[in-house]
């Protein structure tokens, strides 16, 4: 009853009694926006889904490619300024579809430069404004020469139920500010987060997550990985989707614990509680 594992584009049968489950993943611009090893997220997703017996159909969508009709999970990684400029206009043009998907509870994970371009706009260090896809009500400004990049290990408490404590590494010039329609993805304990000021990290809208954390993010945060797989399954299967029964993740938990220690040792601790300071300055 299973489709051919060597041919991931083979359509899967509808789920029945827990067998033959599958999710449809769109990997956006993974040949362009790939500078910070965010491909590790897809590597971890495939491996974890295989442990659960879930088939993953991946459609890579790059410059000039059409979006597929449907998706359960959308991934996009980070890129250099030059690469962001290359895709920004086209990605903004895909905004209406991506926003409709977000309203329909498609799971999304947009990292670093991808997060910035999933916001309303990104103003780069030369002052040029790149339009965003508008999935998140956030704006990003690269402050230009003289301002240090936000670089280092991050430890943050996720606001996604069950995703727990997050570890990652951030490396970004842009400062991101949440608008009234956005909730933070996490609260920073060690590191910079969105802007180094308000203690927020990333953004969240329904099942869409934007974040500065790479490292790669999903391999070392198995609870978040399980959350995303669960959200993608709910989109695919509807409200009667059987919840995942979490499997152990021995190597991932050990790497997570090691990264927690590193972040505590090396990154500045955020003192102020972020309170209500989410608004755009």
């Amino acid at each position: 009853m299973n489709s051919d594992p060597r041919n991931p584009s083979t359509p899967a049968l509808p789920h029945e009694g827990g067998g033959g489950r599958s999710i449809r993943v769109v990997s956006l611009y993974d040949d362009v926006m790939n500078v910070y090893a965010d491909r590790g997220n897809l590597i971890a997703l495939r491996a974890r889904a295989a442990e659960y017996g879930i088939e993953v159909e991946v459609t890579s969508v790059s410059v000039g490619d059409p979006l597929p009709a449907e998706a359960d999970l959308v991934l996009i990684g980070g890129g250099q300024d030059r690469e962001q400029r290359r895709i920004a206009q086209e990605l903004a043009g895909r905004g209406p579809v991506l926003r409709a998907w977000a309203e329909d509870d498609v799971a999304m994970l947009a990292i670093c430069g991808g997060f910035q371009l999933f916001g309303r706009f990104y103003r780069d260090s030369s002052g040029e404004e790149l339009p965003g896809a508008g999935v998140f009500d956030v704006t990003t400004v690269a402050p230009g020469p003289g301002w240090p990049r936000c670089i280092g290990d991050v430890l943050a408490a996720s606001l996604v139920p069950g995703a727990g404590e997050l570890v990652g590494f951030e490396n970004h010039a842009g400062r991101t500010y949440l608008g009234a329609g956005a909730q933070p993805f996490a609260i920073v304990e060690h590191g910079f987060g969105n802007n180094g000021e308000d203690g927020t990290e990333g953004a969240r809208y329904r099942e869409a997550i934007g974040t500065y954390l790479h490292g790669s993010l999903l391999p070392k945060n198995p609870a978040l990985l399980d959350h995303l797989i669960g959200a993608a399954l709910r989109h695919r299967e509807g409200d009667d989707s059987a919840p995942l029964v979490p499997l152990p993740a021995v190597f991932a938990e050990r790497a997570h614990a090691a990264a927690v220690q590193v972040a505590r040792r090396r990154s500045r601790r955020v003192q102020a509680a972020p309170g209500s300071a989410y608004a755009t300055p």
Partner: protein
Amino acid sequence: MLGRASGAVVRRLGRGGGTALPGLVAATIAPRLMERLASTPGHGVATVTGTNGKTTTTHLLAAIVRAAGIEPLTNPSGSNLERGVIAAYTEQVDAMGRLPDAASQVGLFEVDEAVLPWLFPRLRPRVAVFLNLFRDQLDRYGEVDSVADGWGAMLRRAAHAHTLVLNADDPAIALLAESAHGPVVTFGVDDDAVALTHADHASDARFCVCGARFVYDAIYMGHVGRWRCTFCGRARVAPTVSARHVELRTDGATIEMTIAGAPVTVVSPLAGLYSVYNVLAAAAAAHALGIDASTIASALAAAGPAFGRQERFTIGERSARLLLAKNPAGLNEVIRALTAGDAPLMVLAMLNDGVQDGQDVSWIYDADVEALAGRGVTLVCSGDRADDLALRCALAGVVPVSVIDDTERALDAALARTPSGARLDIIATYTAMIDVRAALARRAGVGAYWEARA
């Protein structure tokens, strides 16, 4: 000379050999020392820069100039920041602050890619070698584009006569020819048999300066290959020093090359196509320095490995080979070299996250570790971030048999699993390499490298 005395002191401190600290002292005391000394070697100065292969290329070039009767003045052991270069001079100066043997010397300096724009106008090199530009330690260097832009601006400002030695196959390097004022010597590979059948993930210069995507007639590694732009017409040029036929083995390579048309064959003890590029770069630099092809070829065949770069150690009935890998392109090439044969592999892999390694260990996800899967690898993971490395390898389908943070215990465990008569391959990031090399040297009875050089 204070700078010199401190060298003896800090070398006793161990880790890193203290090869940069005397220069730090000298730089503080005499900031213009280097600018004054830079012009004194009678055969001028050559610089070697790029993401991967600086130490090996400089080491090979030193062997060639020695064979040509010229004494190299070098900065040893990857000590390639400003301080390391100053240290190379201060180690040699006499009480009068002069280089006593300057007339018979050439300065050969490996220079960190981020430091080159500062050092270039001060060292005023007669020959400047550019090897490659890969993503490396993004937390330290920033993004790849800004490094290339900095080099271009540096070359356009250059006020002294020099020859550029450029990797024809790396478009980010080859296009520096557009910023050249003087002669350009190029090196590259012309052998489709060593081309990849699919692109590596860790490729960076995929787009031309005109904005179009490069087309490749052959890809040798990452974004390195026979490239062209169908939009603006920029394209790889036929290299001055060309590898026409390359045979890769797990323990070395045979390279049939032409040097400005003269055919020579080099049997190198260095494994991997990345080492072939270092051999070609050293040959091209020596050619730019005016050394003849037969001297180049015989010196390259006789040259051993540089510090920690494919060095071999004999420990009882077993051997160990130390392979430095500090970024995705480097790790991909090490894996490719290891998997050139069919024999089962015993591997100790070590990941540290110090400043010299890159504090961000994300890069292991950009490397194609999957290439080790199904190749009969017995793997031990170690280093400060052993757990991160173990996770990466497990996700690639190479589940480690053991994960041991401590270097000494990990080395002993890996040696214990290595069959008698077999070889342990140790892949390590920079500071992990320094640590495990010391542990290897103790077990093999080999002296520390700075003693070996004396």
